[in-house]
């Protein structure tokens, strides 16, 4: 296991370097001058020069890249042009809100997907299975930026049960988490159904039943445990959708997380902040995938030997 971990960590270094380089390239090499975008084409040359200097764009590209990488190694993501504060600090302040939303969405997705997926597998081919399949297709097809407003109309405006937006009380978390977790729950449910269907005819489950275990114990303890492996794969594959979905969900619900900060930074043309946020979200994604791989290797020794 230690060897596997070490190999995975070593392989991560070129990926992280590549990610940092691509983020730098997006904001520095692509045709189009950030100064033009920030000031507009009518700005005076003197104004442009001041901003160019403030952004460090007056230096040769190679020097900018070297300083950028050196800064990253020190944990320095630069300074926000708009808020005049270190980018790393601004992101750090928003992490807890984003983590809260993403974890709550994940919990909701699992809480919906596991029971429904198992139920659909046990009643495969019946009306219950068809209904669960239809719900899954519907859930996976509704984009978060439409589901969010629909939930607001129903739960906040019509029923008045939940806050429309913001993060003022624990109740504020429910709608954004439900919005973000719905698509994931649909995909997880289909995968749970498929995995449980694969496992149900296995001999060891017949043995467990023959020992006199209740059907509930057989399903939840024996079947689901082995159905977890493909679920981890799906979770790691869906982490990307969850993180990018969070950017939009945070915008819909004015949730003060890193995603909303990214969109606010783009609107304010605050490129150091945009760069920092994009890099941070990509790093979280890479770390999440690494954790999923480790969990997979831990649960299934065959992966380590591959």
């Amino acid at each position, binding site marked *: 296991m230690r060897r596997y971990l070490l190999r995975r960590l070593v392989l991560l270094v070129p990926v992280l370097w590549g990610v940092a380089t*691509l983020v730098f390239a997006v*904001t520095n090499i692509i045709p189009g001058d950030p100064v033009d975008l920030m000031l507009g084409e009518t700005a005076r040359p003197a104004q442009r020069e001041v901003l160019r200097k403030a952004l460090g764009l007056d230096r040769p590209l190679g020097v900018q890249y070297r300083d950028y990488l050196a800064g990253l190694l020190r944990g320095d993501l630069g300074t926000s042009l708009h808020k005049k504060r270190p980018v790393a600090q601004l992101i750090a302040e928003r992490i807890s809100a984003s983590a809260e939303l993403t974890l709550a969405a994940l919990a909701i997705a699992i809480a919906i997907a596991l029971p429904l997926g198992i139920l659909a597998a046990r009643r495969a081919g019946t009306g219950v299975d068809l209904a669960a399949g239809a719900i899954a297709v519907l859930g996976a097809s509704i*984009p978060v930026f*439409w589901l969010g407003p629909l939930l607001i109309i129903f739960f906040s405006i019509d029923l008045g049960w939940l806050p429309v937006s913001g993060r003022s009380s624990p109740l504020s978390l429910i709608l954004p988490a439900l919005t973000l977790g719905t698509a994931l729950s649909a995909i997880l449910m289909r995968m749970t159904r498929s995995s449980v*269907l694969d496992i149900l005819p296995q001999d060891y489950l017949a043995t467990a039943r023959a020992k006199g275990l209740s059907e509930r114990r057989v399903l939840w303890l024996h079947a689901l445990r082995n159905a977890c492996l493909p679920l981890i794969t799906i979770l790691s594959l869906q982490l*990307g959708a969850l993180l990018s979905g969070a*950017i939009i969900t945070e915008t819909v619900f004015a949730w003060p997380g890193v995603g909303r900060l*990214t969109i606010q930074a783009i609107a304010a043309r605050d490129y150091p902040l945009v760069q920092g946020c994009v890099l941070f979200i990509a790093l979280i994604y890479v770390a999440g995938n690494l954790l999923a791989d480790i969990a997979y290797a831990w649960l299934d020794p065959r992966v380590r030997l591959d």
Partner: protein
Amino acid sequence: MRGNTSIRAGALVLAIIIVLSIGAPLFAPQDPFSLNLAEGLATADWDHPFGQDKLGRDIASRVFYGGRISLMVGFAAVFISVLIGGVVGAVAGYAGGAWDEFLMRVTDVFMAFPGILLAIALMSVLEPRVGNVVLSLSAFGWVGYARLVRAQVLSLREREYVVAARAAGARPLRVVVRHILSNIISPVIVEASFGMAGAIVAEAGLSFLGLGVQPPAPSWGAMLAEGRDFLLIAPHLTLFPGIALALTVMSLNILGDGLRDLLDPAQKR
């Protein structure tokens, strides 16, 4: 059988959406750009079956015309992604060795950007034009196809008929195009139908965030963003573009499911 039913259902709904979008000049009840401030936010009537937006424009007409943008961007982004991903995957899988190693590390880097994050980053520096939206969606869209094509090429590279073609003196390009790519088209088609659904949602997402197609051009995402400000008093502004978007995505997903069941029975469940 289930595959066929899914294909028929998905294709039928998608065909209706395509016809209504391409034929928007024929089917749209009004000019999608025509302003009527006095009737801003009005609900449905005979002349405006989906109601009117804040500027009094006909929502039904804008939904029909918006479909053109969504479908065009989705198709173009998937086409370019398949093209780039196909070439990268074929070279990596067939050439192997250092080429494979290099190209796969490049895909690793692109895969480190979750969902539409790279497109968001690109659109933050590019002008919000349709062409740039297609470009930014393709910039991350190609990776999945590259991985898929590489895996398929690897599995076919040493098959007897491919070895025979090589032994007969066929050049690498001919072997790859004629003997390998023609045999891996099915999984690529399945992936492309899901990919198009993803690209359409991503385009709408970028427009929703103000980074995609700009007003007054009718885009479903931008219409949803505009409607968000009037949720309390005019929920119909978000209802109809949302239904159009969800129906399009759902039909593509159902079509993809059906195609997968039909073309790749091993995956069927």
